[in-house]
């Protein structure tokens, strides 16, 4: 999309310069010699026509650009739909494959029972439970996807950011402690109330804290920092002393379905949902990481009132 912008500017400038020059020339002529008024009138008409023509050209160029933009957006949309659907297909087909096999096994056991081989209904129990588990897994994926697609319109309220974060930290802290994980707070003293969507920000903070505890597994520190930046936006920084993220994965972690958790344990939608929320709130989210040392997520939220 950005590629089109220079084209637009160049086009306008290209037509604008001669038009302006002609206008200046035309307005100077009567001053130089009053007798040239007829010529002046002619020149005026010419410049009027030129401007009309210019206008039409610019319109045409802009229309063209709109078409190009629309095409580009559409093709980007298609590409991401393609990517998304292959992700969904994969994530849903795996549990479906397991369900299919368990059904097959139940059929086998049923046949054996009929044949009186000594197997009983109890031999199906485990398979039935597994099917329930896998259905749950599919449901988790589809629900998160719906959440992702629903694009909830943010509702903007004044939010005490430190308080919001502290609530989420306390929610995570007890389980974290059990794994030997300490949470350090560095809340900025004068972080002003932020105008944002509280529930959405809570969801983001909780997701990132949860990822951090998962990355640490056992024994480590999560540090939560808030501060006001010069331009009036608020910064939230959450860092951990966990596993870190390999360089080659860094640009994939916000992609839907990217996960390094074992099958069935993570949907890989957490961070892509976070990214979607923060962009909708007009903010940014960035990551820095080093394998073996830890990871740092920085979120910048606009709308801090000073």
């Amino acid at each position: 999309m950005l590629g089109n912008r220079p084209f637009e500017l160049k086009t306008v400038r290209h037509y604008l310069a001669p038009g302006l020059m002609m206008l200046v020339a035309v307005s100077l002529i009567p001053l130089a010699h009053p007798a040239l008024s007829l010529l002046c009138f002619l020149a005026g008409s010419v410049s009027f026509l030129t401007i009309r023509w210019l206008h039409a050209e610019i319109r045409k160029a802009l229309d063209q650009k709109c078409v190009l933009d629309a095409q580009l957006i559409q093709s980007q949309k298609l590409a991401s739909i393609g990517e998304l659907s292959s992700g969904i297909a994969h994530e849903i087909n795996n549990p479906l494959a397991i369900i299919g096999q368990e059904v097959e096994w139940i059929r086998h056991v049923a046949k054996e029972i009929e044949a009186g081989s000594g197997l009983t209904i109890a031999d199906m129990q485990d398979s039935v439970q597994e099917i329930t588990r896998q259905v749950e897994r599919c449901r988790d994926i589809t629900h998160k996807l719906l959440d992702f697609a629903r694009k909830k319109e943010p509702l903007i309220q004044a939010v005490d950011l430190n308080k919001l974060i502290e609530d989420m930290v306390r929610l995570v802290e007890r389980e974290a402690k059990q794994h030997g994980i300490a949470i350090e707070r560095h809340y900025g003293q004068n972080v002003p109330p932020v105008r944002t969507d509280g529930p959405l920000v809570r969801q983001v903070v909780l997701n990132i804290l949860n990822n951090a505890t998962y990355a640490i597994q056992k024994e480590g520190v999560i540090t939560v920092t808030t501060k006001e930046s010069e331009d009036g936006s608020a910064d939230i920084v959450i860092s951990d002393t966990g596993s870190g993220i390999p360089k080659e994965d860094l640009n994939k972690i916000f992609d839907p379905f990217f996960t390094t958790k074992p099958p069935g344990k993570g949907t890989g939608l957490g961070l892509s949902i976070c990214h979607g929320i923060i962009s909708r709130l007009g903010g940014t989210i960035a990551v820095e990481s080093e394998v073996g040392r830890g990871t740092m997520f920085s979120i910048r939220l606009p709308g801090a009132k000073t």
Partner: protein
Amino acid sequence: MEDFRVLVVDDELDFLETIVKRFKRRKIRADGVSSGREALALLEQEHFDVVILDVRMPGMDGIETLKEIKRKRPLMEVILLTGHASVESGMQGMQLGAFDYVMKPAEFEELLEKVQQAYERKSLHEEKIRESKIIV
């Protein structure tokens, strides 16, 4: 601003009574029920603005109840209450559109503040919908 209705849902009857009483003392209209099913039944019949919902309840738990409430009344704001913090249910709750999460024992002042914010959000939401209807 004070003219809104709160429904408290908790199977711990002592807690339920105290909270409802405290709301009423502040002239906030509050009712209490002790299960998810009762809550859903009451919401069918009467108008409420904010629901305070215990996560751990026998039978239909808080998360299930939240799901149903959001399905039937998408604009309802729900604050979750929990005795022991569980990250799992917290994530689920926020994802399902809960407004906030309060840990027991909850300080009443804190709960009150959250209820007020939740109500403000609901009003904003309704206003927004009204506006968009006018434009259309």
